[in-house]
């Protein structure tokens, strides 16, 4: 099994999940996942400032807002955040909630990347879920590859 997805997301897609199901017909010695998205950061300071002004107005107590705006630099650069979680035919196999914009993950009976649960890689309907926590850039492109150990890295 090999799956390759190229995707694109914008600010309006933040706070949504994207599910990429696939079918495993035979048991496998392991499952590889490679995921990368770009850009990671919003470099435009004017745009960042606008986003933070909105955020501070929403979340910071009125009497603290002026101070928060003065110290707004500590939040820069603003970041996109997309995280991965994995399900097999029986249920959840964990999540990798971290800021790395490029992740190589592996899952097998004996071992699993941090965040994922090791265990047999059995036939059934699997799913990789991308959780788009924040998209601060006008557009963010990603690439998701999933393949079984039997397939090998290169076709």
């Amino acid at each position, binding site marked *: 099994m090999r799956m390759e997805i190229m995707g694109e997301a914008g600010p309006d897609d933040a706070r949504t999940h994207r599910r990429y199901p696939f079918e495993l017909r035979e048991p496998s010695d392991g499952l590889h996942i490679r995921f990368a998205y770009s850009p990671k950061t919003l470099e435009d300071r004017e745009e960042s400032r606008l986003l*933070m002004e909105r955020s501070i107005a*929403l*979340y910071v107590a009125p009497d603290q807002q002026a101070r928060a705006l003065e110290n707004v630099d500590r*939040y820069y650069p603003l970041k996109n955040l997309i995280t991965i*979680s994995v399900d097999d035919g029986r*249920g959840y196999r*964990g999540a990798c909630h971290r800021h790395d914009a490029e992740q190589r993950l592996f899952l097998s009976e004996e071992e699993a990347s*941090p965040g994922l649960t090791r265990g047999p890689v059995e036939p059934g309907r699997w799913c990789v879920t991308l959780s788009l926590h924040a998209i601060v850039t006008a557009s963010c492109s990603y690439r998701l590859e999933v393949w079984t150990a039997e397939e090998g890295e290169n076709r």
Partner: protein
Amino acid sequence: MRWIACELHTHTAHSDGRQSLPELAAGAAALGFECIALTDHNTMSGLAQREEVERETGIRILPGMEWTTFYGHMVTIGARAFVDWREAHPQRITEGAAEVHRHGGVAGLAHPYRIGSPACTGCYWEYEIADWSDLDYIEVWSGTWAPIKTDNLRAYALWTERLNAGTRIAATSGRDWHAQEETDEPLSVTYLGLEDERTPFEDEAVRALRRGRVSVTIGPLLTLEASQGGRTYGIGDVLVRSAEETGEPIEVGVSLQFSAREGRWSLPPQTFSLRLVGDGGILAERAVDAVDGGYRLETPAGGTTWLRAELWGVVRGARALIAFTNAIYYETGEKGARTP
């Protein structure tokens, strides 16, 4: 009752922490904690090492997971099965909490007023809560040097507001501990009261959270009891009074243990201020010195619906809340009525 020092909000490399579970547990032991909850973001995979690390460090590790969702972070502790955080709907978070309860766990609001997206994604609590009794606790002190942080002051005020509205809900601290980094800032400790030491530790600790047998501090351990009609009630208990008894003052005992976690914290020498607080504000106040001891205070007659103790003093040049107990609840019932 045995009070155990806990750190209830931690992360490892299984999510975005920069520490392993052995490093985290060893760090907790060095700080005098007896128990931590491992609450990685959206995964429980780090718990595979749990028993081995418990054996090696002597630290008890409670299973947990921080629901790191788009509309809020919810700490869950003690659930015996995974509950899907991805289904959380902005108007129906209590369904998720109910599912956590079905699996034996408790659920609390994590750092509810920390700034949200995009600075910290989902960190601000935006979920509507139709029925507060669906949630077990509010993490009112987040991070280090917690008592003076403005986000925490808001969370503490939220807790007080809920108590005033009649909600029986606990309040905790959580460092949101991601790495072994030296800090000279005061660290918060959540003490959980274990009532029955014959039941499995995990069950008893989770029950303490559910029942609000909780006391929080950056220094001494502060505990509280109230007596009525020959019976004594502890933190988290419900004291039922008849209408006539409501007219009588209540005898309250407060205990301070400066020897708790001795050597792991320090406060400048001073005379502290001990307060009893209820829904009418401050009910009683007295000065106390930095020695282990018990104090009897009397609350005025009349109807408060809850009562907690607070210890105030000067820390790092600022007047601050140093410790607080969770509430004892008062209920006016039929004469002779029993605690439900």
